[in-house]
């Protein structure tokens, strides 16, 4: 269930976040602090604050939807220490990068903020002015305004942090369910083939889904390589099939179920249909209860002698 927005706590958190970032930048603990600032259209954008004054530009509000962790890869070079702010799902994304050994923990200072739910920025932006104000200032948001992932979130409190701002929020287990996958599984293979063909045909290959994904963090993406040429340069369902297979399979077992790929898709492709199938299968086949939570060794990076056998057909 979506959490209940708490505008007052969010406001306090923003103040405390700015103060903490200012402190870290002043005493030299970090040389930059990664957070959000307000973009030209009012939506938050990623922002590296480099001076104590710039810390005053950091924002924390119900719209800080995208996770910041991937921007750390832009700071790989050098020895400087980087500060970063995360909420619950943001910390899963950060943990993904850490568990994949893509950024050294020693070079991080993590400020965590427990999360009371986030809203879908695009949906909020589309609201008439007065209503948007009521939502953002009064915290009166209908369930449909929340991010999809808030509905299945079972990690509202940061899992990685050095300082925590505010009190942890109640954190009940949420059963991970995959209703859309179940629906699709009930269709015939032919129907599914047609369904997914429509999906591939629609894709314009902007790569936004890959670029936003915290699990897609390789140094060089095999989709960008010429040799071997995994995805041909001509556009069409066939090459897009390869693209979507590679994207989804390569994050299978490492996907944190943030739903960002689906949210940022330029043409509205429901990408979670693909990711969730892997999450569901991994939990059913190998008994992983929270397959979206980063682990030291991921399900597809290990095996058990008693895994089901697959010799022969079906």
């Amino acid at each position, binding site marked *: 269930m979506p959490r209940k927005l708490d505008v007052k706590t969010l406001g306090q958190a923003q103040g405390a976040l700015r103060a903490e970032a200012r402190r870290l930048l002043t005493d030299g603990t970090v040389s930059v602090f990664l957070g959000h600032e307000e973009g030209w259209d009012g939506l938050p954008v990623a922002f590296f604050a480099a001076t104590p004054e710039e810390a005053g530009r950091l924002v924390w509000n119900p719209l800080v939807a995208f996770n910041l962790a991937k921007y750390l890869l832009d700071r790989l070079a050098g020895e400087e220490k980087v500060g970063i702010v995360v909420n619950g799902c943001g910390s899963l994304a950060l943990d993904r990068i850490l568990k994949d050994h893509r950024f050294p923990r020693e070079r991080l200072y993590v400020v965590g903020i427990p999360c009371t739910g986030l809203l879908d920025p695009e949906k909020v932006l589309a609201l008439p002015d007065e209503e948007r104000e009521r939502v953002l200032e009064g915290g009166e948001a209908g369930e449909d305004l929340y991010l999809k992932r808030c509905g299945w979130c079972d990690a509202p409190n940061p899992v990685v942090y050095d300082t925590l701002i505010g009190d942890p929020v109640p954190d009940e287990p949420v059963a991970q369910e995959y209703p859309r996958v179940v629906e699709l599984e009930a269709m015939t293979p032919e129907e599914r083939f047609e369904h997914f063909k429509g999906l591939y045909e629609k894709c314009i290959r902007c790569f936004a889904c890959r670029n936003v994904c915290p699990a897609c963090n390789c140094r060089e993406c095999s989709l960008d390589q010429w040799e071997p040429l995994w995805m041909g340069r001509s556009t069409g369902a*066939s090459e897009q*099939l*390869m693209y979507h297979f590679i994207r989804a*399979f390569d994050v299978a077992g490492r996907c944190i179920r943030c739903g960002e790929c689906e949210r940022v898709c330029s043409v509205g492709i429901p990408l979670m249909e693909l990711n969730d199938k*892997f999450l569901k299968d991994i939990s059913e086949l190998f008994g992983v209860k929270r397959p979206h939570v980063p682990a030291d060794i991921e399900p597809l990076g290990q*095996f058990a002698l008693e*895994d*089901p056998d*697959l010799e022969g*057909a079906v």
Partner: protein
Amino acid sequence: MAGSQATERQAREVASESRPGADWEPVIVAFLCNWCSYAGADSAGTGRMVQPANVRIIRVPCSGRVNPRFIVRAFQRGADGVLVSGCHPGDCHYSTGNFYARRRLLVLKSYLEYLGIDPRRFETHWCSASEGQKWADIVRSISETVKALGPAQTLAGL
């Protein structure tokens, strides 16, 4: 680049071979591990066992080398069936390669079905170097199964 052009050409050949017709024969791509199944296939051959000619063998060092992309690529470029075969669990030349492969391919098999590819078109087997007869049986059975299913639905050319 030459390499990939050659692969493209081969792929087109495979695709055109599998066009349906009166005497249509399925094309089945088989990934065999060097240490057991490839040797098993070899012993089926040297033992002069009769087997259908539908299977195109690709030798890999270990079933753990089989990237699931290989299988999707084969289907994408017109294969009607795909087969992966390695050493029996516990017998892998690299000790555990086939255990990792098993996990990956289990997930893949379910996923292929989800994407609408008939699961009977994709098989995994464990076949040792001395099991020439088993290999010949595998080839016969998958050839018959896939032939009965007809040409695979394909996205090639879309």
